[in-house]
């Protein structure tokens, strides 16, 4: 009886929507790891695995934020710039003698303001997400430059050692703190997405905004929440970057928004909205991180690297499309015959 119950539960988890892609990609991930391990004995050493997990953290964190936004049918192009803004703001404050933890709080507040701005521009002012976040992307990058007068900062110094250990260099129970921080953040946001009202609203808005509106969902507040989550995650990555380098660099985070999209999409989050689970983003970010790390160990020249990464990303997404296409046709009803639109939805 106990066994049957366990079996039933496993079945239900596997049948959960989005798991199909996750399983396909996990298999891909395992294959990649095996290949890289065979190509280079250093790849599977304890030291590298430890480093690798920590290297995956920024992609996963920004991936969580981007996944939230993608699920509502939007996109966040400001992620990378907010990382830079967070890095520069925290570092500048610390070099000016501000207590590191106070600097952390101020940094989070500033970045959350950007998230709020994104949410309101898109849901109240009805700007298309692409345009709105393109704008905040340049604003945030500009802030990153202005905050220390267009200079990278000095070293944040010994006073910030506690801060650097907390966010990057320290270990707890054998794992880098960065990894623990990522795990905790993932658990919180995964719970929010899968088991609360807000999570349901996020999926509903991304699936059909009109129907969600007529079901009583507050579209504006739901979309804003997604962007706040994204800003929070970007701010965290910025702080991790400050801790890593021990200083603020104005170009920190450059391009991170697109890696975040890659991690999400590989993991099964759809750019059309309404689909995908955060477990997928974990695998997606891991695939990305393993590729970066593994290709270095394999000694691949840079031209090959870029091509390999691009091809693998396309293959994973294609694989999922093919699998999903077959499944949908098999439900018997041939659908409503709607034409699907490619690209990002306008939020009306």
């Amino acid at each position: 009886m106990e066994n049957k119950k366990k079996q039933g539960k496993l079945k239900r988890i596997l049948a959960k929507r989005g798991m199909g892609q996750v399983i396909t990609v996990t298999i891909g991930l395992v294959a990649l790891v095996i290949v890289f391990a065979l190509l280079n004995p250093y790849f599977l050493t304890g030291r590298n695995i430890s480093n690798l997990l920590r290297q995956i953290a920024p992609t996963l964190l920004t991936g969580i934020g981007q996944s939230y936004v993608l699920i509502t049918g939007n996109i966040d192009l400001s992620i990378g710039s907010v990382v830079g803004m967070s890095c520069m703001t925290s570092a500048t404050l610390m070099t000016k003698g501000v207590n590191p933890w106070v600097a952390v709080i101020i940094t989070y507040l500033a970045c959350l303001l950007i998230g709020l701005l994104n949410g309101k521009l898109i849901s109240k002012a009805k700007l298309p997400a692409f345009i709105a976040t393109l704008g905040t992307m340049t604003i945030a990058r500009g802030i990153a430059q202005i905050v220390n007068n267009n200079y990278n900062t000095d070293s944040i110094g010994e006073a910030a050692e506690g801060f650097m250990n907390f966010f990057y260099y320290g270990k707890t129970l054998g794992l880098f703190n960065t990894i623990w921080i990522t795990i905790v953040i993932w658990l919180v946001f995964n719970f929010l997405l899968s088991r609360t009202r807000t999570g349901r609203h996020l999926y509903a808005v991304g699936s059909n905004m009109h129907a969600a509106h007529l079901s009583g969902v507050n579209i504006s507040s739901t979309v804003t929440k997604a962007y706040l989550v994204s800003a929070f995650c970007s701010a965290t990555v910025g702080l991790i970057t400050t801790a890593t380098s021990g200083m603020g660099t104005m170009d920190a985070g450059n391009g991170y928004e697109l890696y975040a999209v890659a991690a999400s999409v590989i993991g099964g989050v759809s750019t059309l909205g309404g689909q995908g689970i955060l477990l997928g983003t974990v695998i997606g970010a891991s695939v990305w991180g393993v590729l970066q790390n593994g290709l270095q160990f394999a000694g691949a020249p840079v031209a090959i690297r870029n091509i390999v990464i691009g091809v693998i990303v396309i293959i994973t997404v294609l694989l999922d499309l093919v699998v999903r296409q077959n499944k949908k046709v098999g439900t018997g009803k041939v659908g409503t015959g709607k034409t699907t639109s490619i690209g990002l939805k306008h939020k009306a």
Partner: protein
Amino acid sequence: MKRKLLGVVLCIVLLLSLVGYASGASKYRIFLITMDQMDQHWVTVDAGAKKAVSELGNVTYRWLAPDVKDDAKQIESINNAIAGGADAILLAANGPTAVTSALREATAAGVKIIYVDSPADYPGEQTLATDNEAAGNKAGQELKKALVNKGITSGKLGVVNVNAATASVVQRENGFRAAFKGTAFQILETQYSEGDAARSKDIAANYITQGVVGIFGANEGCTVGTGNAIKEAGGKVIGIGFDKSNTILQLIKEGHLLATMAQNPDVMGYKGIKAAVAVLEGKSPGAAYVDTGVSVLTKDTL
């Protein structure tokens, strides 16, 4: 009533700006065009140029740069300078042939060209730059010396570079590799970080896992990352890099980096302005090529 007042104020503002423009007409207009606006290197070139401008007093100066390194954008900046009435430009060319078309237009419009940091394959009045290949080689020699002193004559070495497209960093790496030719050291496949300090640290950490004995960082971001990785790993890997910044000097003082090749971008800017003015006044600027040099900064020399 309100509208009329606004109209008068606007007219006054317009007149004042015209006056401002006119009064600048008697000075030399010189524009500095770099690869981007954010790298500290360019900020320092601009600082050096500004110093010369304030000394000379007969120059109207502006720093033009795209937000990111991009050939089309640099061409646009050059065109903007020409349209803006430039008498001379100080240019750090993205690449040897990347912006030739715009440079031809500049010469046709009578604009004088002075190269700072990175010349193009197009005649200019003078080039003020770091001899990147020589500097890279010097870095290699210093690293080799340090390794041999510790009794290490063979092993793996790692290079953390910016990208494969920027001439200056590519030359540095070439110089570095030349220093190890014919030795028993093996340099691994170069990894690129676009100068991002965090990414550079990951790359350097991976090299350390692979058991390298030495790492070379080709610019400021690469060097910061290399130093941090060596600091975290503890142990015996020797790192050497390029450019100076507060953090890099800190890492050298703490012993995590052997040395850095500090360029003199401020000298490029300073002397560049002086050379431009000389040319505009009909005099010779001096030698065709001015090596603004590197200093090797180590723990002892700090």
